[in-house]
């Protein structure tokens, strides 16, 4: 009757963008007559902060203050296509779309400024909303004046479009070999979970999560931490609490309201130690990779391994409910040893459950890993 402490590690990787690509994101930008920037894109902000991140990317790509940029992702009449806010594609692919559009806008601004200043565009730079001659910063022209000149002197609209797209990668159905890189980038993470396990009740208390994420470049560190911490909560739900079908595969007791479905709340929040590693990608905006989805992948296996470290039993069905932990503690089942083979979890296996070892009457069913 005691609480036992344990620690477990997991290391994961996760691709950026739709698997096998073929997922365009596009954007267009126009500049108002006073030099303020309007961005139209289709990337839905699902709460992760993509509008904020995209605004930062545009501001720095053009060289204007952040609050000069307005993002409109509100409708399909004004926005070009974005495949969607999923597959961890917002910062990288959506971000590249607005970056490419901003680069075109920057070129157009320099072209107009060049005429006004009588300096070659290659000798101009933009920072803080001002176009200045390289090496002669006193020779400068505000972006408001450039935009005004475009509008009233040259009769032009400063605009630009951007399209981020990587061609569809084809997979060989016999071998799994692809004909081109099937992702935009790959992010990595490690998580160390520290838990306490009550051997009387089977309850698992996650005391601390140390989480290290390589995001290439943190465009907005606060929002990266938001993903890491929000992901940690979701990982806790996956590892310890949530189940749509508590008696899976049975449909019985399907949770149908909050009171019958146990999602983590703030009371469950452990101590969090977040570490951001920046190993830049070659193609992402400012070296960014994705963080969105992977943020709930590392905690569940780290927790399961911490449970094992604490009380010596493996729980490999998630979530590790008190029931499952107690059952494992009572059974204390050892893996079967057969020569050099160590076989865990036979009672859960296809071979253990299916009347035909998963093969079906004609032997054409599942290929099993022990054959």
């Amino acid at each position, binding site marked *: 009757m005691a609480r036992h402490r344990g620690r*477990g*590690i*997991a*290391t*994961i990787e*996760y691709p950026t963008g739709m698997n096998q690509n073929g997922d365009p994101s596009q954007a267009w930008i126009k500049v108002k007559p006073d030099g303020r920037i309007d961005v139209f894109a*289709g990337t*839905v*902000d699902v*709460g992760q*902060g993509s509008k*904020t991140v995209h605004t*930062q990317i545009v501001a720095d790509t053009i060289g204007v203050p*952040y609050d000069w940029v307005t993002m409109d*992702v*509100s409708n*399909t*009449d004004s926005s070009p*296509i*974005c495949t969607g806010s*999923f597959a961890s594609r917002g910062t990288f692919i959506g971000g590249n779309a607005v970056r490419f559009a901003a680069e075109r806008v920057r070129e157009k601004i320099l072209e107009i400024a060049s005429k006004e200043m009588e300096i070659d565009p290659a000798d101009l730079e933009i920072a803080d909303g001002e176009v200045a001659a390289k090496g002669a910063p006193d020779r400068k022209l505000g972006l408001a004046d450039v935009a005004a000149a475009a509008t009233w002197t040259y009769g032009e609209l400063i605009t630009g479009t951007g399209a981020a797209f990587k061609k569809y990668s084809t997979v060989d*159905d*016999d071998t*799994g070999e*692809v004909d081109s890189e099937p992702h935009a980038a790959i992010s*990595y993470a*490690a998580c*160390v979970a520290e838990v306490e396990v009550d051997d009387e009740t089977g309850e698992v208390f996650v005391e601390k999560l140390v989480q290290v994420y*390589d995001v290439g*470049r943190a465009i*907005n*560190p606060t929002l990266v931490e938001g993903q890491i911490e929000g992901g940690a909560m*979701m990982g806790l*739900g996956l590892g310890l609490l949530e189940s*749509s*079908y508590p008696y*899976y595969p049975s*449909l019985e007791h399907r949770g149908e309201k909050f009171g019958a479905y146990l*999602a983590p709340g703030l009371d469950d929040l452990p101590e969090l130690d977040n570490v951001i*590693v920046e190993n830049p990608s070659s193609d992402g905006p400012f070296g960014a990779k994705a963080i969105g989805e*992977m943020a*709930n*992948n*590392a905690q*569940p*296996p*780290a927790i399961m391994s911490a449970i094992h470290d604490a009380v010596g039993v*493996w729980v*490999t*069905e*998630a979530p590790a409910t008190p029931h499952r932990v107690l059952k494992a503690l009572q059974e204390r089942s050892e893996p079967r040893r057969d020569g*050099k*083979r*160590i076989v865990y*979890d036979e009672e859960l*296996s296809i071979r253990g459950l*299916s009347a035909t070892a*998963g093969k*079906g009457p004609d032997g054409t069913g*599942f290929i099993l890993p022990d054959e």
Partner: protein
Amino acid sequence: MKAVGTRLPRYDGVGHVTGRTVYVDDVRVPGTLWAKALRSSHPHAGIVRLDTTKAEQYPGVHAVITHEDVPRNVYGHLEALGVPADEPLLAEQAVHYRGQPIAVVAAEDEATALEALELIEIEYEERPALLDIRKAFDPDAKPFHQWGPVFPHFGTHTSRRIRKGDVEGAFDRADLIVQGVYRPQAIDQVPIEPQVALAVPEPDGRLTIYSCTQAMYFSMGVVAAHLQWPLNKLKFVGGTVGGGFGGKVDTATETISALLALKAHRPVKWRWTREEEFLASSTRAPWHMEIADAVTQDGWLLGRKMTTLHDAGAYTRFSSYGVTKHSFHHPGAYTIPNLRFDGYVVYTNRTPTTAMRGFGVTSVSFAAEIQMNRIAESLGMDPFELRLKNANRVGDLTANRVRLSDPSTVPVVLAAADRIGHELKAEYRQMTNAPRSGELLPEHLLASVGGGS
């Protein structure tokens, strides 16, 4: 001042925390009707009789739709990738999961719509439900899906396959084979904002659809396909979502709201109740994974054989995509030179499963990482060092033969060890992600590094 790298406040944060952000349910259009769906009360049944006449005649009801009202009822989420369609928008001769929509009513208000549902006459012929994916091929399991027990369209195969290197040789040479079974279960996305859409017929013949979709153009494509309309007759308004996590890619409410609005010539809002959100909105999939790893006494992963069953629920949706992604990442953050992987999409009589944060990979991270710790225990090896030894390095080839350019297994493991004060031997402490050489390039890895497969 540079914006990138700066802790700028969220663009829309003040609106969110002060309740001033306008979500779909906050949009008010005069004359809006409420939609309510008749859903299957059985996981598997034939529909013997369906009669909506009395509901249509009920005062306050403006439209009732069934599959007969849908220009193109059967649609597939992955048709653009060559996967045939298998899911009806509204059930036809049979229902394949509890909560499957059969008929939908649009009425003056919520109460009237609910009363009208009671007037729809339906007669079911109950059939046995198939629920355990492990038994999908058993003689007493009666496949209900038109394609049989599993998705048959991975080329000519019934599984997504990875075949790399000499896996049998690896298992022969191994000092130890570690085998385990891993079963992460379904969870709900649990967005605070349930599925909701508002479809407004415009005077110019277009439809404006206020949508909580995570993917406006994708969802617009789904509606256009069902309606057989060009995109310029549709306008999606959205971009602000009250929680998605993958569950709002499926386009759950938009098409039906649109069909009702067109039939009733009135704006129609369909907002699911929390009960519907749980019952009928697709979940993360339950997965069943079996791994056997061939390892050496000094901690090299020589080979992996893996079988994955993905519980798709009643229809395919994005399942084959998820299993392919899963297959590409099944060695995790490590380089394993010899691989044999088979991933199956298995149909069951539960709500179709779909994308959720980490789609296809959350499952394999769970399995592969517990497996790594079991291997470390079996070998008496430090789990950090086992990971560092087998870590992805620059130039390594992945399961699908992509050369890695910037892998970070080593930096993240070292940072984690450092953070908790975990002691590592000097040879591990000094590791980087640089290309393998010396002792980190043993003979069994030669083919996986610097060319060949």
